[in-house]
């Protein structure tokens, strides 16, 4: 059976005054697929994701959600998309539960769903705490919870674990892995962390300077790349992980 593509990105370009942030990206994300956009600072990840989210408009190219354009379907898409932005600060003096309640109301959802989400992201103990008093990790979890409120068909997370300690990061991964087992949600997440892409995603897209350098499953990526590199460089054996692959592709470290 042919799987339905929930997101299609065709030859999308986007420039700001002096920066050509996205230069001709093509993507196709299937239902239930988890995709990582991996790239260093300034690669164009946020710009790309925000165009898919309908927050920014591409200069050229086409973005289709469930086969349809953003134009004219905004209302419909907003109901099926859940997202977290790279940096959002919620209202300082609202509690965790009140914040969830506020966002739930936008989807016409009641308090019951808020309870569920609070348990899902493990913030029950912080129910009454004001957002301003949460730790960085707890805020990220709240942002994730808000993204999950409407049981989105499409989930878009921009650096959901940046700045978290390894323990908190693993907790977020667990939440997302559970989601993967339990639903057919499609996920695009951006990250600097190889490990995150390896752990969570079945398809990995490496971008830099607004272009896709390489894409495929983890296995594909680690298997194929050696052949390209052999010609240019001395052969060191195939890269054993994404970090090495990235250095081979760009000559730079990902986290620099």
């Amino acid at each position, binding site marked *: 059976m042919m799987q339905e593509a929930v997101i299609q990105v065709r030859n999308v370009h986007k420039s700001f005054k002096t920066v050509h942030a996205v230069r001709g990206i093509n993507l196709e994300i299937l239902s239930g697929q988890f995709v990582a956009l991996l790239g260093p600072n300034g690669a164009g990840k946020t710009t790309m994701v925000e165009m898919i*989210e*309908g*927050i*920014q408009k591409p200069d050229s190219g086409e973005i289709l959600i469930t086969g349809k354009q953003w134009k004219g379907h905004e*209302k419909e898409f*907003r*109901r099926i*998309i859940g*997202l977290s*932005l790279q*940096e*959002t*600060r*919620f*209202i*300082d*003096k*609202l509690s965790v539960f*009140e914040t969830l*309640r*506020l*966002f*739930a*109301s*936008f*989807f*016409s*959802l*009641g*308090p019951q769903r808020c309870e569920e989400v609070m348990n899902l992201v493990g913030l029950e103990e912080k129910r009454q705490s*004001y957002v301003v008093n949460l730790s960085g990790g707890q805020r990220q979890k709240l942002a994730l919870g*808000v993204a999950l409120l*409407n049981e989105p068909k499409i989930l878009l997370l921009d650096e959901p674990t940046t700045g978290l300690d390894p323990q908190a990061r693993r907790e977020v991964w667990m939440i997302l892995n559970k989601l993967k087992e339990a639903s057919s949600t499609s996920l695009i997440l951006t990250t600097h962390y190889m490990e995150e892409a390896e752990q969570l995603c079945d398809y990995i897209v490496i971008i830099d300077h607004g272009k896709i350098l390489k894409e495929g499953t983890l296995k594909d990526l680690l298997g194929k790349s050696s052949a390209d590199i052999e010609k240019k460089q001395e052969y060191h054996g195939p890269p054993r992980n994404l970090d090495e692959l990235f250095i081979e592709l760009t000559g730079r470290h990902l986290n620099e």
Partner: protein
Amino acid sequence: MNKLRNSQLWQLILANARELLREPAVLFWGIGFPILMSIGLGAAFTKKKDVTVTIAVIGHNHLLHSQQDSVSVIRTFLLKNKAVLIIGKDGTISRELNVPDEKLGGTTYIFRELNWNTAMTMLKRGNLNLVIDENQGHLRYNFDPMNPDAQLIYLKFSKLMNDPDLIIRPSETEIQPLTVTGTRYIDFLIPGLVCMGVMMSCMWGVSYDIIEKRSKKLLRRMVATPMKRSNFLVALITVRISMNFVESGLLVLFAWLVFHITIQGSIPALLLFFISGNAAFAGIAVFLSCNTSKTEIGNGLINLVSMPMMVLSGIFFSYHNFPAWSIPAIQKFPLTMMADGVRSIFIEGAGFAEIIVPSVIMLTIGVIFFTAGLKIFKWH
């Protein structure tokens, strides 16, 4: 009921109200500050306080008893009135005379013996306004006729000197001090403070709030949901205007209890007018905040708009002190319009007939700015 509680408009209103009420500073600036201001200014200008004036007396012999041979009108006057002799540690000689006055406030005169040069120096520094020198029973008053304080002291003191019985309470019958409710400074001030409060509250509560939420990327996050954009603004404005009702109500209540101010005109008209004024400033506030995500710029814009109105619109003193040509322009400011209208209801007993035109104008101002702001509103 559950449906209402889950509705986005209700949840937005709740969120805004919580945000507001949980910020103690907001309550202070909204409620405490106007009341403190009314106490300070009201007390300073409403009840005439006792004043102390210093009068320089040139030359020797006028303040001390001993010189019997020479004639001195001032000495006779001071002795007869039992002015208290005070000799300072540094040898300065002065006499103090207190003239009580229930209605206009008492005056304490301090007569200081000085030579001409010292007297002039003190005059230039503003330490005294009147210099008397006496020559054989002939009194000469030296003062700057352009200085109203000096004129006043001269008039008061010369009246006292010319009174055959010397101290009797002056003006027992002739002066009727106007402290009737409605003509005092506090009656002028309170409606002005109410209007200024509304303006500031809309500027900071609506404008600044929107800009801050935009800079936190919260606006962007919210419009990435099915939230209706109008609901966001309606909730913010609703909470702010409700808060303004509470703040203004408390201020008026306070002024009624402490200064016995009353509302002479129609209260329903006042409510309508108050809502129109709020609408005008809420509209302006949305317009101001529609495009920037920098709180510093927001700060500047708010000051740019509110400062001139605070100074020119006759909040603390009547704008009729400004040049005549500028008055028609001043009267077109929303704050002037609101303050004039609220004052006319409070003090002059105005009703719907008097305020309906400015009410409609202010509502229109609000709608125009709101619509224009919404057209260019940056959500991202």
